[in-house]
């Protein structure tokens, strides 16, 4: 064991990047007779992207475990929510980054003073403008439970699927428990102006809402999904999915357009978001 000073006993290992993309690792050891020995290893450092993709696909099949054991597919409102739009403030002048803050503070101070509180997530915005309203609503429809997610003191939020315990609010018959699976996936009837919509078509007629979400989920956060159906539940062949960012939408289009799905070739392209027709 060396003592005291920090001068190296042996030269430190070094890594040299070679012109052909490999790396030469050089290290020094003392052999049995105490002689200095130099060891060189040439490595190619990188990721096999094909193997990586296959591994990622495999892991999508993992069942949830531990604390997530009883969660269904997709994000659970108790653990995951999409926050309000927050910029990554970019500037070539660092002083500007400091100066950009007061405007945001002004806005949030105004909100604080009026004590607006969302019924769903407890955030400082009107309930109808809640960014997570879609997710929370669809989960409420599916499970028949009420209450906003992730909040200590729910301020009497409605359960749209009005369970037997009742929350005291009137629920129209079409939305009550027992009308089957949600008519669409997340987010019905809400403005989707700041999300990015794609239209997927040539879907098989036995596609369900869950299938659609499964198809779209790998590309990112699905804010809303709408599967067009006939009255008997048969898929009309097309659907709309809203993603949180353009990047996710682009990825979905790149992968799904021309994708072979149940013996059909899907199309997938950008689309203007539409309100789903009432069924």
């Amino acid at each position, binding site marked *: 064991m060396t003592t005291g000073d920090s001068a190296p006993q042996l030269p430190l290992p070094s890594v040299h990047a070679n012109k052909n993309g490999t790396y030469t690792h050089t290290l020094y050891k003392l052999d049995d007779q105490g002689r200095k020995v130099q060891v060189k290893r040439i490595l190619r450092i990188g990721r096999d992207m094909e193997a990586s993709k296959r591994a*990622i696909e495999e892991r999508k099949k993992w069942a949830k475990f531990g604390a997530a054991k009883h969660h269904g597919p997709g994000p659970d409102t108790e653990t995951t929510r999409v926050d309000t739009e927050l910029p*990554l403030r970019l500037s070539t002048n660092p002083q500007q980054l400091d100066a950009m803050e007061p405007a945001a503070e002004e806005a949030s101070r105004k909100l604080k003073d009026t004590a607006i509180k969302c019924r769903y997530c407890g955030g400082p915005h009107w309930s109808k403008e809640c960014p997570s309203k879609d997710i929370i609503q669809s989960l409420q429809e599916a499970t028949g439970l009420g209450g906003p997610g992730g909040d200590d003191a729910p301020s009497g939020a409605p359960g749209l699927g009005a369970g037997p315990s009742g929350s005291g609010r009137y629920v129209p018959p079409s939305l009550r428990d027992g009308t089957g699976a949600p008519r669409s996936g997340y987010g019905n009837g809400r403005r989707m102006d700041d999300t990015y919509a794609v239209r997927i078509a040539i879907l098989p007629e036995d596609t369900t809402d869950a299938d659609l979400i499964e198809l779209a989920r790998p590309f990112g956060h699905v804010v809303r999904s709408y599967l067009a159906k006939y009255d008997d539940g048969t898929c009309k062949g097309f659907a709309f999915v809203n993603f949180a960012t353009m990047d996710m939408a682009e990825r979905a289009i790149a992968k799904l357009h021309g994708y072979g799905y149940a013996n059909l070739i899907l199309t997938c392209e950008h689309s203007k978001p539409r309100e789903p027709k009432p069924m």
Partner: protein
Amino acid sequence: MRPIVCQGHTRPLTRVRYNRDGDLMFSAGKDAKFNVWSSATGELIGSYDGHTGVVWDIDVDANTTRTMSGSADSSARLWDARSGKCLYTWTTASPVRSVAFTPEADLALIVTDKKMGQPCTAIIVEIKDNVADIPEAPLNIFLPEPELTPATIARWGPEHTIYMGHENGTVSCWDAMSGERIASKKIHSGVVTDLQFSEDGTYFITSSKDMSAKILDLKLHVIKNFQTERPVNSACICPVKEHVILGGGQDASQVTTTTAKVGKFESRFYHKILQQEFGRVRGHFGPINTVAVHPDGTSFTSGGEEGLIRLHHFDPDYFRFKLDPRDP
């Protein structure tokens, strides 16, 4: 950009990291929880349950088959990544501060804290495919000298070397097999809080309470310095763009009379070559304790003192931004 907030911890976060393929994000906290999330959607995939104390450090092997965690309950555990089952437990004499797999995942490093009358200790253990084959005795144990002060973080360098950051700001380099100290140097004037290697392993970034982060080469020469006015708790090197991300902050100094609903604590982006700050994103309600960047550079995650994880997928603006016109 709309960050995804992952609420899976009831106490401060200690570490977040991505697996090598980038599809999973792991988090650990002072609530003894160790969780795994989808990095695309932020949904909780599972948790590795068993620790009874703060989980200080976590790692995942290159193939995402096993994970490892080190805790203040004086144990390090090996887990099956997919099922959450605990495969093996190493019991140590004092709290574990750092754990790390080698790239081949045939060995692992466990570093314990100077506590309960025990010295700071580095333990090298073997990992086997069949956990029944894991030998009881570690491959090697060595003690970093007391004058270096206890190690706060330790990571594998190339060729079974170990790089450590210490409480007094020293950074040291060790040969894992012989336990010999190869070199050490006083780099920071405060506690070293994080140490993360570049993707190719030829340099690394250290962060410190001395309000700076520095890039060092393998010979412990300081190549770059990133100066801030707040303690830096974590720093990572972006794999594609020439950027580094710093996370930190100090509770008292950032309290104002307006309790904003948008958290005031920020992750800060610096240009790796020009050493100049060019970007900030706020959102955390407490100091940021840990940052990690996706291996493809398409997202980053920060874990805060308030127990929240914020997962940010970059907008096109980020990829287009040039601090210098000559930037690619």
